């Protein structure tokens, strides 16, 4: 089959690879009809996440049709022919973490748990196409994928919604929603979201859906800010204005009640010297992250507020504003999304028309053009917001 693979730093390559095969009894094989490129994929391609190998099949946002099931998948759970959306964290459904609905921390789904444990203190779940630290699972930017624990994760789509309407249930819609959910949103809340990428857009929509009084979008790409503005959110361009002063202005000097970091470890910084400092440190591998958005979110949040972090971090970061966090009674909440927890309720919201996930799609390309897709998404060319690939 054809698959998009990691081919070294800053390089992806579509190549021919063997078709996936059942390896565990509870596996299913899915013929992929739609798949997408995610901001998380950029961290892999940019070389920020260790343990990638040449030839790793990428992609963790995909859906399609079940073409084969293992002997351990009960027929009432999943059958050949079912149309499914696959959540990106692989979860067993039976361990302590799964029982607590902390699916992205599943204790059983990562065959490389030993490595993850050394890096993070405790292991994390397996994830499709997302380095060997999270299991070394082949991903979904391909024609077919093997889906472990197929009786637990995949969500069956029985209505006639289009792929585009449901595809993002695999990751970015639940992730954006979780970003808002972790904020414990009150009707009086002003919520500021750093990052107007696809995840940020859905975090903004979710914050409003959960009743926030005002939602603010912070980014530097005018077209992404316009997209947020069209959806009813208030834009701030951090390259044009001082974010802190603008936020104070918009909140009567209080600061946003809730702040969401939907940027992660590759944030850019308005001030060149600070950016240079972080770049040098990244280049010499003495720091893996550039946490500008997180630093700014913590410093901006009103005292006693919540900072919700859904942007991805991989290792250690410095200049963490611990003083602001501690002395101003802030709450920090975070996690890889527990997608399985949110899929069903969000599908219902899509069916009821409360949220329109298609609004972020700007490009649809054949799988064979994945390289170009990565290029325009990463470099924000052609007003690219989200790329859907068709195998």
């Amino acid at each position: 089959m054809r698959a998009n693979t990691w081919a070294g730093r800053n390089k992806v390559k579509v190549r021919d690879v063997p078709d996936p095969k059942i390896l565990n009894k509870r596996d299913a094989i899915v013929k992929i009809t739609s798949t997408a490129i995610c901001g998380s994929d950029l961290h892999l391609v940019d070389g920020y996440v260790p343990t990638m190998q040449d030839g790793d099949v990428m992609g963790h946002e995909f859906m399609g049709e079940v073409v084969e099931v293992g002997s351990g998948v009960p027929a009432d759970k999943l059958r050949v022919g079912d149309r499914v959306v696959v959540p990106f964290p692989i979860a067993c459904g039976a361990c302590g973490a799964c029982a607590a609905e902390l699916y992205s921390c599943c204790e059983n789904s990562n065959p490389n748990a030993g490595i993850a444990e050394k890096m993070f203190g405790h292991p994390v779940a397996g994830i499709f196409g997302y380095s060997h630290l999270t299991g070394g699972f082949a991903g979904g930017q391909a024609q077919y994928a093997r889906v472990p624990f197929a009786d637990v994760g995949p969500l069956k789509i029985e209505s006639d919604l289009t792929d585009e309407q449901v595809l993002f249930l695999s990751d970015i819609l639940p992730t954006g929603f979780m970003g808002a959910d972790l904020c414990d949103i009150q009707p009086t809340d002003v919520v500021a979201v750093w990052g107007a990428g696809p995840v940020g857009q859905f975090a903004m929509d979710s914050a409003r859906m959960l009743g926030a009084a005002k939602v603010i979008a912070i980014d530097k790409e005018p077209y992404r800010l316009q997209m947020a503005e069209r959806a009813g959110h208030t834009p701030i361009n951090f390259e044009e204005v001082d974010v802190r002063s603008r936020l104070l202005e918009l909140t009567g000097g209080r600061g946003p009640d809730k702040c969401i970091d939907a940027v992660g470890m590759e944030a850019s910084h308005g001030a060149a010297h600070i950016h240079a400092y972080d770049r040098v440190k990244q280049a010499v591998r003495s720091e893996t992250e550039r946490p500008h958005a997180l630093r700014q979110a913590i410093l901006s949040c009103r005292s006693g507020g919540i900072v919700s972090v859904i942007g991805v971090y991989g290792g250690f970061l410095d200049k963490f504003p611990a003083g602001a966090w501690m002395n101003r009674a802030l709450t920090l909440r975070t996690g890889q999304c527990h997608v399985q927890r949110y899929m069903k309720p969000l599908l219902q919201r899509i069916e009821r028309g409360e949220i329109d996930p298609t609004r972020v799609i700007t490009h649809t390309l054949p799988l064979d053009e994945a390289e170009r897709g990565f290029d325009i998404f990463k470099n924000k060319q052609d007003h690219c917001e989200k790329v859907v690939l068709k195998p």
Partner: protein
Amino acid sequence: MTRLAVREAADARQEEVQRRGRGLGWMSLGLGVAQLTVPDTVRRISGVDDSRASRAVVPLVGARELVHAAGLLTSRRKSAWTWTRVVGDAMDLTSLGMAIAHRRGRRRRRLLGVTGAVLGITVLDVLTAVQATRAREIGAAPAVGGARKGGPMELTATTTVRKPAREVYAFWRDLGNLPTFMAHLREVRATGDRTSHWSASAPFGTNVEWDAEIIDEATGEKITWRSTGNADVPNAGTVRFVPAPDGVSTEVHVVLTYDIPGGAVGKAVARYFGEEPHQQLDDDLRRLKQVLETGEVVRSEGAPWGKRARKEFPQRPAQPLSDAELAKGADA
């Protein structure tokens, strides 16, 4: 000294090395950041602000210091990282020597001062590096050292399984189940109510087999066994099943002891357990949990061989296996 006293002394020395290494790490960080962010000040203080080359060299030296800092602050292998500092010192002293030869007056005095400081630091670096290297030799994991020379090795590990204690106990008590999750076991066969015959697979040494008996057990709580007769590697184990506070799960606590012989078998066993013998048992228990909670050992394309994977790295790429690769199996 007793084994324990030797170990404690080695630990203390190791701690001192770690502390000194961290100190040097912070110094590297400070220097590196200064050289990168205020290079001109650094150049002025050092007396090389008249040289164009120094404008390029100082930030480079700063970047190098950050590498040292990263290594010293994050790695426990201080010996290698302190030696890289010594190499850095030698480079600095060489450039300083060249710079002094070309300068007079105020700049020369400043350069001499800086050179004195660097010399002092070099002495400290060399001392720490020598000590770190020694501590590494002495402090090599006693389990492995013990294994190499022969002697007892004790491994402990624990996990929590979301199943009631009697179920986890029953699974373990059916000794034939042990090879499904213990990497080194090929087969365990019950030969009587309390006796059994065990065989270990190739990496453990060639064809190691032995008989064992259960010497103590309490249903649902504990099993203790030991090898009997003329075992190549006399061994014993205890597993306890303790209800977890959540009222649903069971904590599994395992202690294994191996009396490792000298000679070829001992060497093979030592090689098998490698640098981190505890990791083996941790992985065994991770698989026990997978088998009990999910039905089998979990496989990925990068790590497709379940318990037969001897090491987590290197792995094959996270890409589907070809039929040939799949047929060939773990040794492919």
